[in-house]
């Protein structure tokens, strides 16, 4: 894909987040979309491309009153929106549409107007995993970690420190669900969910949404906001079965998506000013840091525990507080992208000074899929 050929010109989250007992899921999509349109001064009539996940993209188009020439319903879990950004960039470049709207809305807490899992069920998962008592994500996504701990000596304290550091970042954000500082002892003392994972190592369950509007880099200069250029992208998939992940200490989908995006963007790790790694659970940033190549294998636990990713550290990571503290509707990827956009616009409540390159890395399912976006405010 051509570097910096497209840009995000509109970006917004839903008006409210957290508990939305009076909004259906599609309504949250629309609320986010209207906010993103207002953000860039466009109207529905300007949109000719739509993409969404976890909800019928056709319903989105019709509900919004859009007649699209490009539709993308890729729904591979929480990183679907990274894939949508990638696909939209390609579609705009290829002339399939001029202005793409990517929406996320999820009644993750209240399940109003929500029609089941955003990911297709897996034949093998139903036969070979569910009979053993796996159910919700905390019982599956966590399974590889004991192997990682045995192989690399990761401690429960280091795992807990991921949540502690991210809570520090959440403290900057008025919209974050949880903002009060926590300690490693608080995390280890919180309710046991799925050993070794305690409650504070697991993501929130909330309602909310977000939307992005993309167009060509050429047109992007005419909008009120600083354009956020799509510099590089990557995507991949591995398996819907956590038990069949090839390497329990590393995600193949992460490695492929990350390396593809870095190569596409023509950047090295030292160029990255700001990093988002989808954190449904506390181990995700560890796998992400290693699989994207920011640290060596087995080094991420100490890297985070030593403060390298906290406010003032050398590699600001998950500066909104992440799925652990900011919000997590189920498919968190959109909120990671929103924070990447804010950082590139210079408008984040936890703004990294002079940041020019942001890497936003997502996971879908339980290490099932992945998408990586490299954004920049310079070309």
């Amino acid at each position, binding site marked *: 894909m051509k570097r910096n050929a497209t840009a995000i010109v509109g970006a917004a989250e839903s008006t409210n987040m957290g508990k939305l007992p009076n909004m259906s899921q599609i309504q949250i999509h629309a609320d986010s979309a209207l906010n993103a349109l207002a953000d860039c001064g466009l109207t529905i009539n300007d949109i000719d491309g739509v993409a969404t996940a976890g909800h019928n993209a056709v319903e989105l188009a019709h509900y919004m009153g859009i007649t699209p020439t490009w539709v993308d319903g890729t729904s591979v879990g929480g990183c679907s929106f990274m894939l949508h950004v990638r696909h939209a960039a390609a579609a705009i470049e290829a002339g399939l549409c001029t202005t793409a709207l990517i929406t996320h809305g999820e009644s993750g807490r209240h399940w109003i107007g929500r029609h089941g899992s955003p990911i297709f069920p897996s*034949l*093998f998962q*139903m*036969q*070979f*995993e*569910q*009979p*053993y*008592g*796996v*159910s*919700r994500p*905390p*019982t599956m996504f*966590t*399974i*590889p*970690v*004991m*192997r990682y*701990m*045995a192989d690399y000596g990761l401690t429960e304290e280091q795992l807990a420190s991921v949540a502690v550091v991210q809570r520090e970042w959440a403290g900057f954000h008025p919209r974050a669900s949880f903002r009060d500082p926590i300690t490693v002892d608080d995390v280890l003392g919180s*309710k*046991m*969910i*799925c*050993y*070794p*994972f305690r409650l504070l190592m697991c993501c929130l369950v909330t309602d909310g949404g977000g939307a992005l509007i993309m167009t060509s880099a050429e047109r992007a200069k005419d909008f009120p906001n600083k354009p956020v250029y799509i510099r590089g992208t990557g995507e991949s998939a591995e398996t819907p*079965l*956590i*038990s*069949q992940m090839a390497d*329990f200490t590393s995600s193949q989908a992460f490695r492929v998506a990350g390396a593809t995006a870095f190569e596409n963007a023509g950047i090295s790790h030292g160029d990255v000013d700001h990093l988002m790694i989808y954190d449904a659970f506390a181990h995700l940033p560890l796998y992400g840091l290693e699989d994207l190549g920011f640290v060596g294998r087995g080094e991420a636990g100490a890297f985070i525990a030593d403060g390298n990713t906290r406010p003032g550290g050398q590699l600001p990571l998950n500066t909104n507080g992440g799925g652990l503290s900011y919000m997590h509707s189920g498919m968190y990827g959109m909120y990671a992208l929103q924070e990447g956009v804010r950082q590139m616009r210079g408008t984040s409540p936890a703004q990294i000074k002079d940041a020019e390159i942001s890497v936003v890395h997502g996971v879908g399912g339980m290490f099932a899929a992945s998408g990586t976006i490299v954004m920049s405010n310079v070309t």
Partner: protein
Amino acid sequence: MSSDGRVIPTPTPETQHYWDGAKIGELRLQSCNSCGKVYFPPRPFCPECGSRDVVVMKASGRGRLFSYVINHLPTPGFEPPFAIAVVELDEGPRLMSNIVGCPQTPEALKIDMPLEVTFETLNDEITLPQFKPAS
């Protein structure tokens, strides 16, 4: 699903041999005549090389505890806390299992501990391979 809400597998054509095997106390894998790959879950072709020249084989039933969690969440058909594990078989493939016949604690469940297959009858149709500490 059983009366207590536990998920009961529904065999499909390509997995029938696996469930038929479990019913008579055999853990079955498949192997490829073209490249030698031993694989799981069941498919009528080799995921390594794509060959359809594959056979069903009886596994040794021996393996090691590759990774696990101890689930504390309420789960239909189970009494928490209980371990959800992944077992690496001596033949190479990994599969999910509970670890039966031992305390469900980190002290009792040691990574890499040797395990052997046992079978849990769920109903007249389905018997589920399970693993226990090797004798």
